[in-house]
């Protein structure tokens, strides 16, 4: 597999920000993941490694260190429920239960219809608007049951 032409052009520009190639790795992985439906396949890791003059295992080592990178396919939509202290104190477990109930996914799993993957994540920096989840990269804060129903009900 090779990187899409548009991504390569984007990365050529990205490389000008840094004195070495490797430093572009994490921003590039974000873009690769975004363009691949939210996960990074071994083939894409190899292709990016080749582009950045790295070995595939170096890329794999970085991918698996960072929680935002996923190495397996996920549902069409990703719900990351924060379960750290400030959210836990204001009902994060109830939020998780409600999200699982509405989507049919178990924590860490994907709904049978493949529409939603639900994950628990550590502090997202929305502590003063807890509880919260992040849906496809967008923060939703001060959640209650009604608000969760409204948000997830509006997802296509």
């Amino acid at each position, binding site marked *: 597999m090779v990187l899409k032409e548009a991504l390569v052009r984007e990365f050529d520009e990205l490389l000008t*920000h*840094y*004195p*070495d190639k*490797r*430093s*572009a*790795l*994490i*921003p590039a*992985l*974000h873009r690769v993941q975004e363009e691949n439906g939210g996960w990074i396949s071994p083939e894409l890791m190899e292709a990016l490694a080749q582009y*950045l003059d790295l070995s595939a295992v170096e890329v794999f*080592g*970085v991918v698996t*260190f*960072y*929680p*935002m*990178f*996923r*190495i397996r396919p996920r549902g069409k939509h990703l719900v990351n429920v924060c*379960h*750290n*202290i*400030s959210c*836990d*104190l*204001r009902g994060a*477990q*109830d939020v*998780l*239960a409600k999200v*699982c109930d509405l989507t049919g996914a*178990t*924590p*860490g799993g994907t709904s049978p219809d493949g529409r939603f993957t639900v*994950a*628990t*994540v*550590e*502090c*997202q*920096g*929305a*502590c*003063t*608007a*807890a509880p919260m989840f*992040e849906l496809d*990269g*967008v*923060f939703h804060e001060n959640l209650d049951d009604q608000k969760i129903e409204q948000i997830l009900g509006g997802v296509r």
Partner: protein
Amino acid sequence: MSRPTYLLDRIGPDSHTLAAYQKRGGYAALRTALKGKTPAEVVDVVKASGLRGRGGAGFPTGMKWSFMPDPAKDKRPRYLAINADESEPGTCKDRVLMERDPHGVIEGVLLACYAIRATTAYIYVRGEYRLSYDRLQAALDEARAAGLLGRKIQGSDFSCDIWMHKGAGAYICGEETGLMESLEGKRGHPRPKPPFPAMFGLWGQPTTVNNVETVFNVPFILERGADWFRSMGTKASSGNLLVGVSGHVNKPGVYEVPFGVSCLELVDGYAGGVWKGRKLKAWFPGGSSTGMLPGSAIDVPMEHDAIKNAGSMLGTAALIALDERACTVRAMEVVARFYDHESCGQCSQCREGTQWLSQIFHRIESGRGRMEDIEMLATLSKSMAPGKTICALSDAAAIPTLAVVKHFKDELEQHVLEQRCPLADPHAAKRPAALAHSH
């Protein structure tokens, strides 16, 4: 009592745009400095102001800048890295500045670069802060188009580039050397110090790492003077700071206060008191890595030394309140799980210790605790800290553990004696079992 404010004053509906920023006098401090001040003079003003870093350690900013080598003797390229990897649980103050006042951040970055004679800066934003990233990137584009960024800024001899760099969810990258490793495209493994970043930083070159709120203060200091800055706060900690108040309060929020304001006033005044008419049982003064204090000890000034004397740390000034029905063991179960998840794994004390702490708190909270577990929490923590590992993540797990054993030992014992959580939410049984690590 009304107190002077400045940090959040500009915030409004369109405050993230260059037009709004310039209407409020934005980039005047940069223009003045480029015309009339040498980099050394900028460092001197910041030194005189007493500005201390807002990222948790409280190190004097001017002094940190002066650690950069003399450019006449050391010709290597030099860098500024902005730590916008805000990840300490309870902390969400830099996000407010980046989302609502990104040009204020950029002006601070440019002035810091000028002071340390760096021509390249990287803003390392945690990957989850998408809006912060987008707003800063849009502001950088505006600044570049207006000649405020790039070659020969505003017709001066000062050239500077600022690049956005996105993290990917690892707490350890908020540690300055972990951040540098991550920026270099590696796993975020902190480096042993020395060598310090000023001598061996990004790509081995002289580097300063500053927090977002720290550099955000700099344009104000240059515009209004060191004496004005020192007129707020305390003798040892001048200026205002942003405090996040979260947890069991009526009005959680990010509030601007002078150093030294009482934490009692933060909870009862700014944050509208403990919710549901309850009493305060416990509180973290500065994020989850600072030791919990009992509610009875809330009337303490929010300031480095006072909180230290009270037995904890100011940290990132992120106050997390627990009401009288909250369980401190449950709180520590969550906190310990977090540090277990975030340990980078380099040092055995931390890699093993955080895992053990997490397992022990989980065991006690779920009604399977043993009396010797409580002693084990303490002895284990003492083997993890202080200063036994490359970075302070191990300490960050050990410190709140020692605090709960000290202040809430009776609650730990009650859990063991009753073989259950005496404060457990009766609804908890129907909840799904959350995965500690979902990838």
